[in-house]
C-alpha cells in the first residue's frame, strides 16, 4: 500500500457536485501533478460534512476545512498548503455571522464539538463508492457479529432494549416493529427501506445515501435476519439520481464479496436488496402508499389496520424503516443497547439528524442527541439569524410539521417534550423564518404544495385544499370578510378530523397553527389591506 503525506477529502454529494466539485477535483489533480506531489497527496471522494458552502476539502492530518468557491484558488492552495505546508486562511470555512466565525481549527474541534455523529458517522469521511473504506470503518462487522453469534430473537431484543425509534416522523419503536413482523406467520417476508424523502426542506436521507450507502444495506440485512426475510427493497425518489447510483454501486460491491446473496458469510442466511425508483409523488412517503407504488399501482394510502408488520407488501409481513432509522442499527449491535441509551433523553434515545435552513447563518445538516433546544440549534449550531434580525417562526419537521413560535424555543426537541406543546418533530427539517417574512404568503405556498400532492382519494383533502387556498387568495387580494376566518378554521378542523391520511391532516394543521399564532396578521391584512412584509402584492 502506498503511504501518502496528505489526504484530501473532497465532498462529492449532489450539492457539492452542483457547486463544481468535479471541476475542483480535476484542477486539484492537475496542480498536484504540476508540483510533483502525486505520490504525496491523495484525493479521496467522500460525502458532504453537512456544510452548505462551496465545495469542501478537508485536509488530513489536521482536519482543516477549505471551502472552494472558485477553481482559480486551487493553484495557490496546492502551492501554499500541500507543497509548503502553510495553511491558507482566506480559503478556510467561515460562518458569516455578525461576529465572523473562522474555522481555523480542525473539523473535530470546531464543527463537531457540539454535534454527536452516530448516524452520519461515516458521511464525509469515507468514499461512498468503495466498500473497502466502509469495511475499514467497522462496516459489515455488525452483520458478521449478528450472523455468527446472535439468534434473531437476541437481535430483536437488543434493538428493543436500545429504545430506537423511527426517524421518519412517527417515532414508532423500531424493535417492536421488527418483533411484530418476526412473529407474523405468513411468508415470505420483506424489508423495505423508505427512501422516498420528499418533505420540503428535508434531505437528511439523501446525505446518508450519498455519503454512506453501505450502512443502509448492512442494516437491512440485519433486519432481514432478525425477522426472517430474504428480500429487501429500497424505494428511492426518482429525482435522487446520485443516491440511486451510489446505492446500486454499493449493492453490486456487496454482492461481489458475498455480503449479499446466498449463504452470507458462510451461514445459511440469504438476502438480496433491490433499488426501486419512484415516479414523483409526495404521498408515497406514507408507508402503505409506498407499498402500493412498489406493487406498480397508484400510490394511494391503504386503510390501517392491517398494519404492514403483518400485511404489507403483496399482503405479506413487511418491516418498513426510514433511511435514518436504519443507519443506527450497526452501532447499536457493535456498542450495545446500553451505550445507545446513554445518548438522548428518557423516551427519545439516540441522536437525530436535522436540516437547518431558511434565515439562519450556518445552514446545513447537523446531528445532535435528542434533548437539544431549538435555541441551541439555531443560535449556537446555526450561529443565529441572518442579518441579526429577530425570529418570527420555526417550522419544525417540514411542510407536514409544526409551527414553533419564539416563546417555545427553550423546549427540548424530543418526542415527549415536543408533543406536550402540541407539535411534532416530523422529518427533522428546521426552517427558520425571520421577522420580515409573511405568514400568509408562507401558508399559501404550503397549501399550494399540499393541493398539488393530494392524491384525491378522500373528499376533505381533495375539496378542502382548493377551498382553503381560495380563501387565502382572497385574503391577499383584499376580497374577504373577517368572519370568513372562522369558516377557514372550521374547514381546517373538518379536514383534520376526517382526512384519510396524514397529508390532509398535516395540511389542516398548518392552517390551524397559522390562525392560532398569527391571527392578528390575517386581520391586519384584511383590515388595512396592507402586507407588512410587502409579499402579498398590492392588496
Amino acid at each position, binding site marked *: 500500500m502506498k503511504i501518502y503525506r496528505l489526504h484530501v477529502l473532497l465532498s462529492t454529494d449532489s450539492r457539492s457536485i452542483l457547486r463544481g466539485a468535479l471541476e475542483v477535483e480535476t484542477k486539484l489533480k492537475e496542480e498536484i501533478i504540476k508540483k510533483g506531489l502525486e505520490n504525496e497527496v491523495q484525493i479521496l471522494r467522500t460525502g458532504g460534512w453537512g456544510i452548505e458552502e462551496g465545495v469542501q476539502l478537508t485536509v488530513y492530518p489536521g482536519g482543516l476545512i477549505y471551502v472552494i468557491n472558485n477553481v482559480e484558488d486551487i493553484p495557490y492552495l496546492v502551492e501554499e498548503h500541500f507543497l509548503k505546508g502553510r495553511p491558507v486562511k482566506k480559503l478556510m470555512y467561515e460562518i458569516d455571522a455578525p461576529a465572523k466565525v473562522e474555522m481555523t481549527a480542525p473539523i473535530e474541534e470546531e464543527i463537531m464539538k457540539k454535534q454527536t455523529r452516530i448516524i452520519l458517522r461515516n458521511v464525509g469521511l469515507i468514499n461512498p463508492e468503495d466498500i473497502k473504506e466502509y469495511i475499514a470503518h467497522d462496516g459489515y462487522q455488525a452483520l458478521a457479529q449478528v450472523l455468527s453469534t446472535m439468534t434473531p430473537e437476541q437481535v430483536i431484543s437488543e434493538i428493543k432494549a436500545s429504545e430506537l425509534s423511527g426517524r421518519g416522523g412517527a417515532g414508532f419503536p423500531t424493535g417492536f416493529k421488527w418483533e411484530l413482523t418476526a412473529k407474523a406467520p405468513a411468508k415470505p417476508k420483506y424489508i423495505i427501506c423508505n427512501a422516498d424523502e420528499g418533505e420540503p426542506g428535508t434531505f437528511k436521507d439523501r446525505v446518508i445515501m450519498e455519503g454512506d450507502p453501505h450502512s443502509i444495506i448492512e442494516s437491512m440485512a440485519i433486519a432481514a435476519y432478525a425477522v426472517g426475510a430474504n428480500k429487501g427493497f429500497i424505494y428511492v425518489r426518482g429525482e435522487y439520481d446520485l443516491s440511486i447510483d451510489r446505492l446500486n454501486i454499493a449493492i453490486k460491491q456487496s454482492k461481489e464479496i458475498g455480503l449479499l446473496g446466498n449463504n452470507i458469510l458462510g451461514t445459511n442466511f440469504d438476502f438480496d436488496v433491490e433499488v426501486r425508483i419512484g415516479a414523483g409523488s409526495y404521498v408515497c412517503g406514507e408507508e402503505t402508499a409506498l407499498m402500493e407504488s412498489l406493487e406498480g399501482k397508484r400510490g394511494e394510502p391503504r386503510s390501517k389496520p392491517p398494519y404492514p408488520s403483518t400485511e404489507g407488501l403483496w399482503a405479506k409481513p413487511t418491516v418498513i424503516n426510514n433511511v435514518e432509522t436504519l443507519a443506527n442499527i450497526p452501532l447499536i449491535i457493535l456498542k450495545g443497547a446500553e451505550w445507545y441509551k446513554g445518548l438522548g433523553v428518557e423516551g427519545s434515545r439516540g441522536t437525530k439528524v436535522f436540516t437547518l435552513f431558511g434565515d439562519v447563518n450556518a445552514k446545513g445538516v447537523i446531528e445532535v442527541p435528542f434533548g437539544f433546544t431549538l435555541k441551541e440549534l439555531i443560535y449556537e449550531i446555526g450561529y443565529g439569524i441572518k442579518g441579526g434580525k429577530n425570529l418570527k417562526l420555526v417550522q419544525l419537521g417540514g411542510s407536514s410539521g409544526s409551527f414553533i413560535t419564539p416563546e417555545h424555543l427553550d423546549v427540548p426537541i424530543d418526542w415527549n417534550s415536543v408533543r406536550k406543546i402540541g407539535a411534532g418533530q416530523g422529518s427533522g427539517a428546521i426552517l427558520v423564518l425571520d421577522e420580515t417574512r409573511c405568514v400568509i404568503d408562507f401558508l399559501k405556498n404550503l397549501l399550494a*404544495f399540499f393541493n398539488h400532492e393530494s392524491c384525491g382519494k378522500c373528499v376533505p383533502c381533495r375539496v378542502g385544499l382548493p377551498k382553503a387556498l381560495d380563501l387565502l387568495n382572497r385574503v391577499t387580494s383584499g376580497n374577504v370578510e373577517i368572519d370568513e376566518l372562522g369558516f377557514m378554521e372550521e374547514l381546517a378542523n373538518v379536514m383534520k378530523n376526517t382526512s384519510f391520511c396524514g397529508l390532509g391532516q398535516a395540511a389542516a394543521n398548518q392552517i390551524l397553527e397559522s390562525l392560532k399564532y398569527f391571527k392578528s396578521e390575517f386581520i391586519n391584512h384584511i383590515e388595512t389591506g396592507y402586507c407588512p412584509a410587502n409579499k402579498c402584492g398590492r392588496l
Partner: protein
Amino acid sequence: MKNEEVGQLIKEYKETGEPLLTLLHKIQNLIPHNHLPAEVLKKVSRELKIPVSSLYSTASFYSMFSLKPRGKHIIRVCSSPPCKLEEYDSLIEAIGEKLNLSIGETTCDGQFTLEEQSCLGLCSLASVMMVDNDIYKNVTVTQLPEILDTYVEE
C-alpha cells in the same frame, strides 16, 4: 409510435420481472414528447394482460408521467418553501414572459413544457430548477435567458 421498441421493452419486462413503474419510465423516455400516449398504454395492456383502467390509474397518478404530449425539454422549477423564499415567483413570471407559458403548458413550437418540481433536497442552493435532467442552482431571473437558450435549437 415506436411500436417495435416498445414491444422490446415489454418483452424485457416480462423476462426480468422489473417493476411496472420502471417499464413506464422507459417507455416514456422512448416516446417523442415525453409522454405515455393512449395507444401505447393499450398495447402494454394487451401484452401484459393488465386492464387499461389500472394502467391509466397508475400513469395518471405520478407527476413524472404525462398522458399529454409535452415539450422536447421540460423545465421544472422547485416550488417548495425554501425555494419559494428565494426566486420562485419571479422565475415563473420571467419564464412565462419569455416563452408565453404558464405552469402545465407547452410552447406552441413544442420546445418547452413548464412544470413545478417538488423539493429536490438542495435547499442551500435555492432557487433550484431543472431542465430535463440538468439541475441549475441559485437561479435568478437574469441567468434565465442564458440557461434556456442552451436548449433552443438552432
